[in-house]
């Protein structure tokens, strides 16, 4: 009673890591918003699934490796993490290739979830 309803915020991660900063700055935004006790979810579609690829080694490139921080999202109480079946298949990946085990959904199920959000953030 009197408590404000939580806002449903979904991060839609479509960009691959390292080639551009969107995946990384998107992650920074997820971590901050995670502290605001809203209803956060994160979905990885298209090239966004590459952000979760296992065995990323950025040392030779000299840039930050941040896939492990995606793996730590649970520690920030962000547990609604999804990915798209066809995006994985197109890229020759299965959920076993990923550092975490997001729930694998059909595009139509993801579309339905997107529809239910109040805020969609593209990264």
């Amino acid at each position, binding site marked *: 009673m009197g408590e404000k309803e939580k*806002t449903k*915020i979904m991060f839609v991660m479509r960009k691959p890591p390292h080639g551009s*900063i*969107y995946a990384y*700055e998107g992650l*920074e*935004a997820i971590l*901050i*918003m995670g502290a*605001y006790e*809203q209803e956060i979810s994160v979905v990885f579609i298209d090239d966004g699934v590459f952000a979760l690829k296992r065995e990323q080694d950025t040392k030779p490139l000299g840039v930050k490796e941040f896939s492990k921080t995606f793996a730590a999202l649970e520690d920030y109480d962000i547990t609604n993490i999804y990915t798209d079946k066809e995006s994985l298949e197109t890229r020759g990946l299965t959920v076993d290739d990923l550092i975490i085990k997001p729930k694998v959904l059909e595009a139509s199920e993801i579309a339905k979830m997107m529809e239910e959000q*109040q*805020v*969609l*953030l*593209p990264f």
Partner: protein
Amino acid sequence: MKFGILIQDGPYNHEAADSAYNFIQAALERGHTIQGIFFYNDGVINATKLMEPPQDDRNISKRWSDLGAKGIDIIVCVAAAKRRGINEDVLIPNARISGLGQLTEIAIESDRLITFGS
């Protein structure tokens, strides 16, 4: 309605800043409120007062500053700004540098959040 605006790309190089501006103008004319304009990623470059476009071209940072003068909250992400060399010394008038918490608040308080980028 209350609209929040997120801008992810820099001025001139991509059309995103123009589209966002045109959208905001139309929203204001339709009687909506702009809850805040948040510059993230390369979007922070919109907020430098050192911009000197050719005389016959639009001045994109001045557009944002003018919206700020009308009372719209113009916020530049501090972490993104530091990476790209935007700080208080070069910030346009009527804008402020702050954290991603401000984007969160815009997201929570707005009826719609619309993102412009590339």
